[in-house]
């Protein structure tokens, strides 16, 4: 079965004023949709047709550049929409402990994550991931690469992600990426992030 563009669990304007409805709509219906279509085009009629997106990306060193770029774009945006939401909440329990162990405090984690997002030059993503030894770390990836790809320098299970392609924020924030990163903290669905931690 072909890859499908997922529906969002909230309306395009649900993240206002932090992420505007126009950005959400174009991001989802144009950018994400294009990655989905191109990914389907890249696997159609090949031995990769029918494989899960995770299986493709974990073995991406053996795949075409079209699968790397569009498969990454498909997966990353699927993931991003899920960790965003109008609900707030905060990290708690074992998850909060793991953050404190890795970064010293929740605030120190936010500083490190924001720094990764700010300093990613060009297009890419910042990530909070759980590594194979169970510890948490912050990393960033160029373009549509991600930490589940076997080609990534730092790999692990993604818990939280921030898209820092300019298309993610340019209509509202233009060159002010740090303001977009600040705003992002208001629309993180920590329930989902914590769920990613428990499953990871």
């Amino acid at each position, binding site marked *: 079965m072909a890859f499908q563009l997922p529906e969002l669990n909230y309306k395009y304007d649900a993240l206002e004023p932090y992420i505007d409805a126009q950005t959400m709509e*174009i991001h989802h219906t*144009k*950018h994400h949709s*294009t990655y989905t279509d191109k990914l389907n085009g890249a696997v159609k009629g090949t031995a990769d047709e029918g494989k899960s997106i995770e299986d493709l990306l974990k073995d991406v060193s053996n795949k075409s*550049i079209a699968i790397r*770029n569009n498969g990454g774009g498909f997966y990353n945006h699927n993931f991003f929409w899920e960790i965003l939401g109008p609900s707030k909440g905060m990290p708690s329990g074992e998850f909060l402990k793991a953050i404190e162990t890795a970064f010293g405090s929740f605030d120190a984690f936010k500083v490190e994550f924001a720094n990764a997002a700010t300093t990613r*030059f*060009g*297009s*890419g993503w910042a990530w909070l991931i759980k590594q194979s030894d169970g510890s948490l770390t912050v990393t960033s990836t*160029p*373009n*549509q690469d991600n930490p589940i790809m076997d080609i990534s320098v730092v790999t692990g299970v993604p818990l939280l992600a921030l898209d820092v*392609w*300019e*298309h993610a924020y*340019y*209509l509202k924030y*233009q*060159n002010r990426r740090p303001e977009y990163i600040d705003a992002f903290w208001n629309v993180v669905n920590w329930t989902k992030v914590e769920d990613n931690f428990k499953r990871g």
Partner: protein
Amino acid sequence: MKFELPQLPYAADALEPYISKKTIEYHYGKHHQTYINKLNDLLPGSDFEKCDLDTIVKKGHNGIFNNGAQVWNHTFYFSSLSPNGGGKPKGKIAQLIEDNFGTFEKFQEIFTKAATTLFGSGWVWLVQKDDGSLEVLKASNADNPLRNGHKPLLTIDVWEHAYYLDYQNRRPDYIDGFWKLINWDVVESRL
């Protein structure tokens, strides 16, 4: 040495409707200016403190390269454009394009395809190599053909900030507009 934002060779609204005044105000006034500011902040105490911009672009690394090359690239890009631009090149550059690509239209097709398909942020360049031949090159992020010993003749910025306010995800429409703005006299003067 302290670098300064060069003057634009036209008014901020001069490239409309292909590139809006708002885009120029951000692209030139904010992005280009920020690369200059960051470069000036990074240079004191570095190996490149007394170097010219070409040397920084050719030999720099990390933040000094990224910001230095982005200063160079944007100055080169903005000076490649003109409200009276577009059309077909004449003279020596036209001849070289025909010699290397067959026809101007074929060159246009190759350059457009490279600009459309460059994944992520970056630049597409028309360069002249040591042997005099022309080539179209894709370059990610801040990369610049001087690092490979090529002579840059023309470039298009395909970072999303170059077109997102005007065209959003429609990069091909921005590239269409770019062809109507190229100052071929300036391109020829770079040979």
